[in-house]
């Protein structure tokens, strides 16, 4: 199963980005093969429509879960209809490595 994590940078020690649409980087982690892929967010500095463009990007990688700090009003129904699970970690400073370790439990 693939999980997308929003990241502030492109290393394992980067912190989880609290925003979804405008995060610096998406980390696609495959829990089966344990592979990690970093995708820079091309919509980072776009004026609007960043959320739905980001959803398209992660949905094209067929992820099942997205870990982020928050999801916008437009994104929640979109992800709901795509049956992608949203996981919100609020007010916690966690690195990508931490999240992957928790996911592996």
């Amino acid at each position: 199963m693939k999980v997308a994590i929003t990241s502030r940078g492109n290393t394992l020690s980067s912190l989880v980005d609290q925003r979804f649409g405008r995060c610096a980087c998406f980390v696609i982690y495959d829990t089966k093969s344990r592979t990690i892929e970093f995708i820079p967010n091309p919509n980072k500095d776009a004026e609007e429509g960043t959320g739905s463009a980001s959803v398209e990007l992660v949905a094209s990688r067929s992820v099942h879960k997205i870990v982020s700090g928050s999801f916008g009003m437009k994104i929640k129904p979109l992800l709901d209809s795509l049956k992608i699970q949203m996981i919100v970690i609020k007010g916690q400073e966690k690195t990508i490595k931490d999240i992957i370790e928790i996911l592996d439990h």
Partner: protein
Amino acid sequence: MSPRVKTPRKIQNPPLVKGFKPYGPGSGKQNSEPVILLYEEYEALRLCDYEMYNHQESSLMMGVSRPTYTRIYASALQKIAKAFVEGSQISIEGGKVYFNSDWYHCGGCNCYFNNPEKEKEMKNCPLCGNLQITPFDSEMTMDETRINI
């Protein structure tokens, strides 16, 4: 006097498509106005005739009273019947609604998550696998969750 304010209707699953188009010889009348099916009417139909809940249960899920639910449902049926008989397009849009799915909170890793597949019951946290999960009522903190989650 201003009219009574409508209660916002809660939608769990937004429709996958934006509408329906007729086909066949009689469908050439493109000038006919599409029938506007409101989101709340789509949801009322889905709950009652697809998920097979009764009106009482459905009304609770949409956060409206049972009589209001029945009115929405009746309006949905009438519009669909009109579209079928007259061969007009159905466009699903509008309505006073908000979207929400069931949210949970995990005591283990202090995260919040939703359940995209309503058929399955959530047992453990999707992040840390902890069993200490509690339903998180986002209605109570609706304004907060709207902005923050």
